[in-house]
């Protein structure tokens, strides 16, 4: 009866865990149930074909073990020419012990479901199967907390893997300041920042740290470098913040009971008739312009004049489009 791939993989795991020193490919083929053994009665051509089939199957299985999270150690022996042997170190391969409280278990279960259907969603589910292997059934607590499933972009998933493997990647990027270009970078960190995701990486062409907004990656992320080709610094020269812009200060007039976010961000600066005046410092000029526009007439830029003009220009452009003359 043919042995299923799962049974063969289990047999391989158990064999590599129990081997004293190592097992070579020949050892594995000869002794692990599920592989096609050497058949002495076969003619040379058939034997060669079968060997090639075995090699392909074994390479695939090794890759599957890696994806399962099992580190396979390669052991070379000088006594036997330079042939390669393999083993699994049980202490390295075993799930590390973590004592989750019932409410922690519940929230980990929610987290595992958070990316369902998205890239990395399957990985999160598998992580939950592992974590819950040690939890008694029904142990998790009911929480007054729920999540809508979120999407993580394919780009983010590919970059997470590239960071793990320390492998350079290439992608198309739509930059706000310098247009579209192909970027080759060594990914360092993914930053989650209130709904927006960023990549901090070393830009190989620009020879400097750069921060990329993941939503502006317009192509698939291709792994182009060799694994383990760079070190990820423990200290980041440019810090770990999405990049800042120019800074300035504006005076904004606000209708009473309007613009509370701007009021909270700024300081009271008197009144102008019905309007309250507020001095607002800003990091991104775009942000302040956007906030004033969004208030739809309940806010008015007093100064600087050029920002005031911009707001008017934007509103006029919006009117054109709204009237179908865009």
């Amino acid at each position, binding site marked *: 009866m043919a042995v299923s791939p799962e049974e063969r993989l289990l047999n391989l795991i158990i064999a590599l865990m129990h081997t004293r020193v190592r097992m070579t490919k020949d050892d594995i083929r000869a002794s692990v149930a599920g592989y096609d053994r050497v058949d002495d009665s076969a003619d040379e051509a058939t034997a060669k074909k079968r060997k090639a089939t075995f090699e392909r199957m074994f390479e695939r299985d090794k890759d599957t073990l890696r994806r399962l*999270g099992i580190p396979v150690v390669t052991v070379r022996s000088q006594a036997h020419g330079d042939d390669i042997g393999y083993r699994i170190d049980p202490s390295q*391969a075993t799930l590390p012990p973590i004592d989750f409280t019932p409410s922690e278990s519940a929230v980990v279960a929610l987290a595992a479901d958070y990316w369902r259907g998205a890239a990395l969603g399957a*990985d999160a589910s598998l992580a939950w199967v592992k974590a819950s292997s040690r939890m008694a059934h029904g142990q998790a607590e009911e929480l*007054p907390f729920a999540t809508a499933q979120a999407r993580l972009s394919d780009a983010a998933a590919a970059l997470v893997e590239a960071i793990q493997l320390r492998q350079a990647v290439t992608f198309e990027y739509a930059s706000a300041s310098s247009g579209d270009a192909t970027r080759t970078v060594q990914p360092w*960190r993914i930053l989650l920042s*209130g709904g927006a995701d960023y990549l901090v990486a070393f830009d190989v062409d620009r020879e400097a740290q750069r921060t990329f907004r993941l939503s502006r990656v317009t192509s698939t992320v291709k792994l182009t470098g060799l694994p383990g080709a760079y070190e990820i610094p423990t200290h980041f020269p440019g810090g770990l913040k999405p990049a800042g812009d120019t800074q300035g200060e504006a005076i904004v007039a606000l209708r009473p009971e309007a613009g509370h976010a701007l009021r909270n961000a700024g300081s009271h600066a008197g009144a102008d008739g019905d309007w309250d005046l507020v001095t607002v410092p800003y990091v991104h000029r775009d942000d302040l312009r956007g906030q004033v*526009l969004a208030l*739809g007439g309940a806010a008015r830029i007093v100064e600087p004049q050029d920002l005031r003009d911009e707001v008017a220009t934007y509103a006029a452009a*919006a009117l054109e489009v709204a009237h179908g003359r865009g």
Partner: protein
Amino acid sequence: MAGDRAVGRVTRLLGIIEYLETQGATDFAELAAHFGVSAAQIEKDVTLLWLSGRPGYSHEDLIDFDGFAFDDKVADLTNAQGLRQVSYSPREAAALIGALSALVATGAAPDAASSALGKLTTVVGSTGVEVVSATEVDPAIRGSLDESIATRHAVELTYVDAHQRRSVRVVEPHRLVAIDGAGYLECYCLRADDYRTLRLDRIESATAVDVMVTHPPAEKLGFSLDAGFAATVRVARAGRWAVEDLPSVELETTDAEVTARFPVADADWAAGRLLAVAPHLRSVEPQELRDALAERAANVLAVHGD
């Protein structure tokens, strides 16, 4: 891909071994519920495990179960051949830690999320995913919301809505939710006499009120965030940023422009967002959103015109 199926099943097979090693003999039904498969599948899994073992594959080399217990549909592991559940793969660790981090970043997750995240990262190490700026939710406000939810009491909130209007309202809090990276309070608003989903970072104060919660929680997550209509907006690529992170947006990018399709729950709010990239807008559908955009733009011009 066949390889993915094998990874999933082997992970469960090792999970069954680990579960039995820690919890002792367990019936198939409980294993089925725990691992989210049918009892028939658990029986197949146990049978497969029973056939696996060390090279030699004589009786003492094989994973072994109690045969009588098996007939009673109970898995009673008597020899695991040293097998245990294996460690998280790098992608699994990153997925779990990343998802937990994202929940913590919303400011809505319970404290257990941070402590679980701490325990995981201590064991697994850095996975390359980090939270840089958690949503700014005042711990005192969060504390009184947690307290009111736990004791089923109403709470008086000062709330600044998406249009930056401040209001004071008494709500019956039900639970905290994380939606699209932001934290919300799901509640029944006694002022509106309807269900509301309020953003945590826009709550300025929260004071417990001596009124018990009487309305049941809404059936559906994020009830009042439901879309009224679907919008399609074409924008030059320079204006992409204003549409790319809209909740549930679908983007289609060509060389010159981006087409964004997204559900609109609040036309005024969506219009406000579009104004921020007005010079880059190419077209806005439907009429309802164009009207909201025209009205806001006209009001802005009225106060900024000379």
